[in-house]
């Protein structure tokens, strides 16, 4: 399967020993938005300056093969039209507790479904 910008940057981030949190702190990206970029749900940034900042944080040397690949993948990337969103039932939790230590209410469960769906919302 052809490498996408999403899988490429995720792989490089993990290889650089950076958590999503650390990466977002270093680049200034919002964590939930960057997570969507890494899942191919948001298009990657197109600004060369931003992409160069990303390569620096990922410890990718300028003009290296990885640098060229990242730039090429960003330029080519768009969120695929046929992207299959995951089955929401598979994303729901089985065991969890509310912070207050009680079973969640029906409203909280419905809100949770909405939030999970939104976390996988595909933006073209």
């Amino acid at each position: 399967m052809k490498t996408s910008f999403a899988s490429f940057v995720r792989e490089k981030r993990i290889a650089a020993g950076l958590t999503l949190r650390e990466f977002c702190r270093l680049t200034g990206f919002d964590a939930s938005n960057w997570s969507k970029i890494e899942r191919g749900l948001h298009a990657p940034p197109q600004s060369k300056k931003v992409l160069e900042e990303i390569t620096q944080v990922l410890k990718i040397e300028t003009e290296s093969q990885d640098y060229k690949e990242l730039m090429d993948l960003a330029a080519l990337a768009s969120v695929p039209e046929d992207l299959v969103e995951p089955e929401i039932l598979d994303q729901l939790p089985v065991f969890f507790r509310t912070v207050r230590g009680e079973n969640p209410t029906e409203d909280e469960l419905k809100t949770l479904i909405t939030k999970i769906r939104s976390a996988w919302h595909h933006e073209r």
Partner: protein
Amino acid sequence: MISVKLTQDKIREEAEQFRKEHIFTPDLPVDIEHIAEATMGIRIIPIESLQKHCDMEGFISKNFTSIYVDEFLYTDDRYYKRVRFTIAHEIGHFVLHRSTIDNQYFRDEEDWITFRMGINDETLGWFETQASEFAGRLLVPIDPLIEEFRSKRGFVLKKHSPWDSKPLNDDDLFSLIAPLMCKRFDVSAEVIERRLRKENIIAILGR
């Protein structure tokens, strides 16, 4: 009704087995987020206002591909210890409760809501306590726990004994020493206190 009661020994065994399979360095604190992503292939997905709107800090998806966390807690340094514990706790569900979770089938979202509303507190309490026990053992291994306790105990006893004519009891000692021990493990003082009690540290080392 689903039910599972695991012994403390079983949870200890599972945590040690997990450590052998997924943690390749004795370094502390345990890099739990990296382990989830790099060695288990689980995605960490921050969700906005998860705690505010659903009163939850995090959860693992039924198919074990994603751990969702509250975005605010995840990105704010003041709460990151809690998020680390949440991630370890969710891994605990994966390790300890995988077959029980796999066996749950939901026809649709309504069916899931009915299932969730029907779990009684006691059953849920067992699953949650076991996952937390696993998380504590994973983030605070026994040998460094003993080492830290031994190195800080004298200081605490010397500093605080004169405050009262009575000697410190075990609970006082734990609550005074835990904040001094938590930095090495990057967990909260409450987690350290629980670990000290669970490991019966006074019986191992004396006072």
